[in-house]
């Protein structure tokens, strides 16, 4: 597989020259990865449409019009074309479409890439195969029905002749393009449905794969901008004297529509230069806004919530609250822009290549058709790259300074400059009759989403309202379903328990026959739903048909101290025909990590009018040692495919909370879970014979002091560590004993996010554990 930057060059070659010369000799002038012109070589390529090009050596280049952000779309979409054209998969390369290459819209989101492309790409592939078969039949002077295609070879059914696709390019180019080629029946699929590693993996593991930040073009400079510390803040004055003295700094000045920008020879100089700026801020009107106030505003803004029928024998009500979430893609937002007098070229990791072109046109005044947009690989997307802010900024800077620039967010910029999954507040009410039948369902939300559950409940009442806040929000993997399905699947569980019913049976009885009921049954079977668990263990279940029908069972154990372990996750999905089962499995495993991270640990909070978190230290993600085994079962299907980018997310978090309830009797209704103590008793690991410790203040915000005495030790040192909800050690330090086993130590735990943690004090065999709360 060639690297993506070469893909761009080869795609330009093909489209600029190959397209005009379709069906004839294509003389190619192109540049290599570093932009150096190469000597033209004559070649005969067969390029019947904008999706496929076959070279004489058999290399089959397939165009992919959707952005690769880890969901495997460059592999799955190429597989669809390769299937219908019976290509040799080992000879397939992928090139990335641009807005001007005639491959339709580039929008990549809503889990729609496979759904929207399936029929079109099958036809594109079938067209190629039909033309190759016609060419072979003509060459051999036999009927087309006597020719068959398989893995890049046409062979004669009643004879021994064989010819490679690459040997037919010249002949096939002379065949007229059929308008209605016949498609395979799904039973004849050889490639679709087989597990394939991503086609870019060889480039990824060799370091050759090019993401946005890896683009290097001649004369390119590096730019960062100053971000406001609060929403609505502005710079009242700045002094760039110290910045301009630093090596590598080119400019430190205001750019129209952007703000204060530092331009430098390299990233380090740009970041150092920004640090050296002296800035006076006007903090603006939101300077005192914080998460507590936002929570109050949401709660008071919910308005009237309908009631369940008064005749209900039993009524229950529950309130849920979800935090803002950052996308925190591994690759920060960035864009390379080369804005020239009358044209421009952009390299950008984006989900919306067409929108990027329009955005750059808007801010530069250039016409859209004079702007070339190259979509690079994306180091994660999750919806963040549906926005175009980073490209507009890059374009404005390049235009103002008249140089090609790589504009990037630092990690802190990225975490504080996101369009967040909205924080939301939800009230649910449910009614049951005396037999446990549901008599009413109400779900109202502020700033979240409330959709009707898939269950057969009479007159469900779901509605939403909003309160205006200055925090920008946007699409975040599975979007409104992140709140709607979390709440619905937690609340149906609460209703099941209130009705005295098994949560699986309760759901099962309320579901009409269909895919969702089938996956629910299958997940219960594979997760051994009815098998007894040890004390302190629990199972939770949840399901949704938001994207594909999917059901999860999460199994947890919770220690007396309140340390949680996610023991096992079982997922069953019916996504229609699974184009690449290896990709489907990866999406479900990955979405589980998203869901566990955000359910357990991570949140974005507002302090002094701005985002508090700045990096993965205070916006924590699940780690290797916290990763449970995720078992994925795909229901065999020949139905049209559904999307899998988002399906794996929504039902994991409610299944987890339901499992915690099953294990502990504690209903967690506010995320992240680490803000709730799951401890059965407060200080379970204290044995007075060993000694005692005191922690103060409690709760604490950044610093606390631990002092105490261990009876069994009087020399050496005491080891002090802090564990999170999952038992992972986040901090380790030590303190000397003063006398008689006494010790005292101040601990700085400021970088961590708010929540319940565990302090462990250890010396030799003596161990004391104490729950601590960080606010």
């Amino acid at each position: 597989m060639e690297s993506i930057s070469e893909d761009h060059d080869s795609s330009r070659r093909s489209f600029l020259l190959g397209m005009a010369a379709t069906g004839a000799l294509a003389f190619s002038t192109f540049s290599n990865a570093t932009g150096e012109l190469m000597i033209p070589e004559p070649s005969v390529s067969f390029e019947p449409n904008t999706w496929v090009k076959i070279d004489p050596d058999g290399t089959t280049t397939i165009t992919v019009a959707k952005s690769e952000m880890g969901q495997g779309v460059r592999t799955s979409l190429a597989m669809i074309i390769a299937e219908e054209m019976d290509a040799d998969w080992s000879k397939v390369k992928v090139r990335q479409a641009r807005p001007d290459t005639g491959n339709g819209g580039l929008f990549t989101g809503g889990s729609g890439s496979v759904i929207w492309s399936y029929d079109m790409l099958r036809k594109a592939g079938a067209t190629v195969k039909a033309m190759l078969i016609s060419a072979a039949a003509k060459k051999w002077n036999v009927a087309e029905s006597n020719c068959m295609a398989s893995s890049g070879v046409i062979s004669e059914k009643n004879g021994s002749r064989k010819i490679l696709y690459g040997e037919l390019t010249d002949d096939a180019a002379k065949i007229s393009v059929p308008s209605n080629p016949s498609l395979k029946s799904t039973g004849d699929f050889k490639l679709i449905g087989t597990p394939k590693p991503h086609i870019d993996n060889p480039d990824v593991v060799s370091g050759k794969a090019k993401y946005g930040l890896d683009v290097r073009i001649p004369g390119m400079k590096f730019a960062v901008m100053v971000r406001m510390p609060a929403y609505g803040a502005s710079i009242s004055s700045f002094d760039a004297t110290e910045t301009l003295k630093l090596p590598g700094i080119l400019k430190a000045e205001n750019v129209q529509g952007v703000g204060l920008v530092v331009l430098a020879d390299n990233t380090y100089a740009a970041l150092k230069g920004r640090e050296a700026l002296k800035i006076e801020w006007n903090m603006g009107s939101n300077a005192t806004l914080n998460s507590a106030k936002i929570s109050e505003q949401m709660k008071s803004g919910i308005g009237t919530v309908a009631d369940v029928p008064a005749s209900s024998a039993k009524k229950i009500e529950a309130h849920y609250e979800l935090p803002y979430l950052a996308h925190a893609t591994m690759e920060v937002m960035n864009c390379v822009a080369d804005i020239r007098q009358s044209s421009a070229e952009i390299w950008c990791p984006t989900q919306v290549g067409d929108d990027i072109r329009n955005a750059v046109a808007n801010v530069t005044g250039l016409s859209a058709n004079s702007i070339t947009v190259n979509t690079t690989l994306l180091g994660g997307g999750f919806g963040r790259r549906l926005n175009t802010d980073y490209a507009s900024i890059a374009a404005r800077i390049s235009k103002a300074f008249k140089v090609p620039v790589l504009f990037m967010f630092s990690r802190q910029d990225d975490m504080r400059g996101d369009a967040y999954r909205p924080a939301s507040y939800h009230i649910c009410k449910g009614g049951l009759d005396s037999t446990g039948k549901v008599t009413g369902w109400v779900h109202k939300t502020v700033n979240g989403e409330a959709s009707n559950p898939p269950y057969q409940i009479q007159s469900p009442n779901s509605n939403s309202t909003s309160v205006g806040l200055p925090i920008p929000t946007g699409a975040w993997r599975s979007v409104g379903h992140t709140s709607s399905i979390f709440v619905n699947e937690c609340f149906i569980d609460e209703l099941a328990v209130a009705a005295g019913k098994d949560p699986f049976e309760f759901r099962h009885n309320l579901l009409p026959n269909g895919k969702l009921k089938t996956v629910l049954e299958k997940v219960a079977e594979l997760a051994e739903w009815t098998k007894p668990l040890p004390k302190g263990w629990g199972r939770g279940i949840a399901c949704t048909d938001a994207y594909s029908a999917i059901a999860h069972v999460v199994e947890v154990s919770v220690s007396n101290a309140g340390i949680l372990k996610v023991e096992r996750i079982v997922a069953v999905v019916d996504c229609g025909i699974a184009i690449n089962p290896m990709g489907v499995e990866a999406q479900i495993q990955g979405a589980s990590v998203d869901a566990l991270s955000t359910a357990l640990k991570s949140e974005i909070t507002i302090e002094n009018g701005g985002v508090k978190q700045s990096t993965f230290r205070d916006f924590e993600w699940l780690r290797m040692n916290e990763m449970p085994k995720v078992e994925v079962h795909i229901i065999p299907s020949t139905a049209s495919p559904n999307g899998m980018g988002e399906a794996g997310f929504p039902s994991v978090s409610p299944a987890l909370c339901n499992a915690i309830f099953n294990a502990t009797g504690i209903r967690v209704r506010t995320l992240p879970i680490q803000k709730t103590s799951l401890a059965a008793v407060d200080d379970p690991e204290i044995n007075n014979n060993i000694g005692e410790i005191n922690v103060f203040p409690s709760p604490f915000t950044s610093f606390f002091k631990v002092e105490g005495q261990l009876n069994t030790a009087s020399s050496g040192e005491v080891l002090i560590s802090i564990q999170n909800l999952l038992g992972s050690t986040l901090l380790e330090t030590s303190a000397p004993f003063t006398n008689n086993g006494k010790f005292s130590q101040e601990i700085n735990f400021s970088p961590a996010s708010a929540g319940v943690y565990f302090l462990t004090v250890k010396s030799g065999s003596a161990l004391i554990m104490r729950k601590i709360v960080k606010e």
Partner: protein
Amino acid sequence: MTTLTINGQQKTLDVPPDMPLLWALRDILGLTGTKYGCGVGVCGACTVLVDNSTAARSCLTTVAEMEGKSITTIEGLSTDNSHPLQKAWIELGVPQCGYCQAGQIMNATALLIKTPKPTDEDINLWMKDDICRCGTYQRIRAAIHQAAGQ
């Protein structure tokens, strides 16, 4: 001026001595396989191998500290993806977006140098500071075992 060896080749860098190795690799030497993730040593995307023995966060390692040292980046692990970790990563389909994987592979390289036959627990402890935002941990663990011949 700092002289160091990168992927077997001696290089002389005329950069401020406090420049992190990460930016020297990416912006000065054009070795963009080593990635920027957080810049403060908490995500692992920038991990490189020093003196063929230890893993280092190149975002926290200055160029001056690397004087006379030998650095291996993802580009230098093999010329043809033949390193057992690269082979296992491809075969088991580890990468999703792929952005963190160079760091994951370089840290796993250091693990296998120290512990040629790691257990799950060894892998969990060694790799726990390398974030994969796509959540490929399960396959990373399997790929390390496969590369170790387990």
